[in-house]
């Protein structure tokens, strides 16, 4: 008997979900990212308004001053959905763990000048509280934002921020040789230290903003855009004179994360600004307002770490952010005299 094995090609009737097909065409297989993000959020036929804000629908475009004809133009260049996000973050966590284990096993932190160790504990560790505020802000965007594309990415970013707070805490434990003294001291600095109060006030003011896109600009573009370059470049460079390399090995991760996150924030800002001049005006207003506040709030911290060069370092971070925004068709505004 002869058995003839053949492959029979069965053409699928549909390649993807109807809502994706309406956007991209019926005969095109969609990527997982597209299926997981585009047009997922309900847009019509809401039954009840939220009792805590009856002026809005459950999902309402009026929650921000930014106006978009289509809310699905904020494509995340990293194409994060559950799987890709977790794969990417697992790799990041692994690289951080490897670096910290390397430093810890060899006791490299003991070789860093003690004064610089104290300085790092004083400038880095309070930032874990700032990361927590950033997490809250991202969750607010995920909650009140419009369109799954931006809200799901914001929720991922929020989870990142909790991760970053943990990363900073872990560095604190290494600095304290396993003890939590430095972390406790850092909390006191954040709550009572004079240099930190302008930044804490800024963080708390952001927590009560109601326009979610303003939160996006203030936190993810302006504050992160100044804090991370300051932390990962100026502060880090200052450690070289004190044999700070082991610290840099552990904090290097923060720069990697910031570069990754900036790909997303740049894409969002570019799309929002490109939509209309009205949007651009609103965004520029927020950038100017929060840019000035963040600049002022970071000065005392930078002065504490870098002394007289602190002002120049903040100005440098500001120039970097300004150049980044200019490429996206936005302006941070004039440099404020310190």
């Amino acid at each position, binding site marked *: 008997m002869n058995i003839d094995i053949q*492959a*029979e*090609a*069965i053409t699928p009737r549909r390649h993807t979900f109807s809502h994706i097909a309406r956007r991209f065409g019926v005969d095109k*297989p969609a*990527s*997982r*990212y597209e299926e997981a993000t585009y047009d997922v959020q309900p847009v019509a036929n809401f039954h009840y308004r939220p009792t805590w804000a009856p002026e809005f629908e459950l999902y309402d475009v009026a929650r921000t001053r930014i106006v978009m004809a289509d809310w699905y133009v904020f494509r*995340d*260049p*990293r*194409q*994060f959905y559950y799987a*890709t996000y977790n794969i*990417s973050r697992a790799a990041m966590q692994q690289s951080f763990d490897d670096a910290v284990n390397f430093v810890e096993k060899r006791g490299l932190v003991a070789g860093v000048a003690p004064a610089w160790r104290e300085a790092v504990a004083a400038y880095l560790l309070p930032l874990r509280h700032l990361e927590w505020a950033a997490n809250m802000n991202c969750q607010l965007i995920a909650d009140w934002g419009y369109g799954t594309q931006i809200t799901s990415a914001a929720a991922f970013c929020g989870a990142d921020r909790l991760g970053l707070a943990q990363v900073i805490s872990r560095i604190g434990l290494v600095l304290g040789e396993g003890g939590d003294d430095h972390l406790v001291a850092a909390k006191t600095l954040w709550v009572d230290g004079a240099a930190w109060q302008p930044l804490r006030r800024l963080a708390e003011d952001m927590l009560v903003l109601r326009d979610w896109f303003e939160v996006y600009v203030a936190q993810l573009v302006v504050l992160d855009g100044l804090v991370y370059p300051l932390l990962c470049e100026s502060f880090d460079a200052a450690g070289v004179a004190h044999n700070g390399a082991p610290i840099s090995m552990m904090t290097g991760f923060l720069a990697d994360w910031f570069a990754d996150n900036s790909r997303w924030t740049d894409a969002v800002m570019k799309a929002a600004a490109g939509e209309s001049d009205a949007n651009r005006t609103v965004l520029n207003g927020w950038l100017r307002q929060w840019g000035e506040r963040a600049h002022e709030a970071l000065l005392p911290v930078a002065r504490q770490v870098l002394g007289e060069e602190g002002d120049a370092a903040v100005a440098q971070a500001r120039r970097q952010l300004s150049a980044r925004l200019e490429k996206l068709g936005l302006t941070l505004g004039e440099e404020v005299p310190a």
Partner: protein
Amino acid sequence: MSRPVSITLQNSQDGIAIANAILADNPEAQRKSFPAMTKIDCPGRLSILADSVSERLGREWDPQEIHMSVISLSGSVDEDDGSFTLFWR
């Protein structure tokens, strides 16, 4: 007409992105769709550019990862950090 080189890829997320990159970067490439796999033929020479695949995947893609998606290929291979090329000598 030069002999065709070919590569057959799984229809996975990565495989689809690689196939799309090949078709965009090699104007003479022909796609043949089969159940769960895609065969691409191209006369003479076919290049897979890492940047092109990375852009479609939204992450850094290393040409060595191609082995996770390849079912079969024909042609000599030239591989470096930026590209994976099939050709006949």
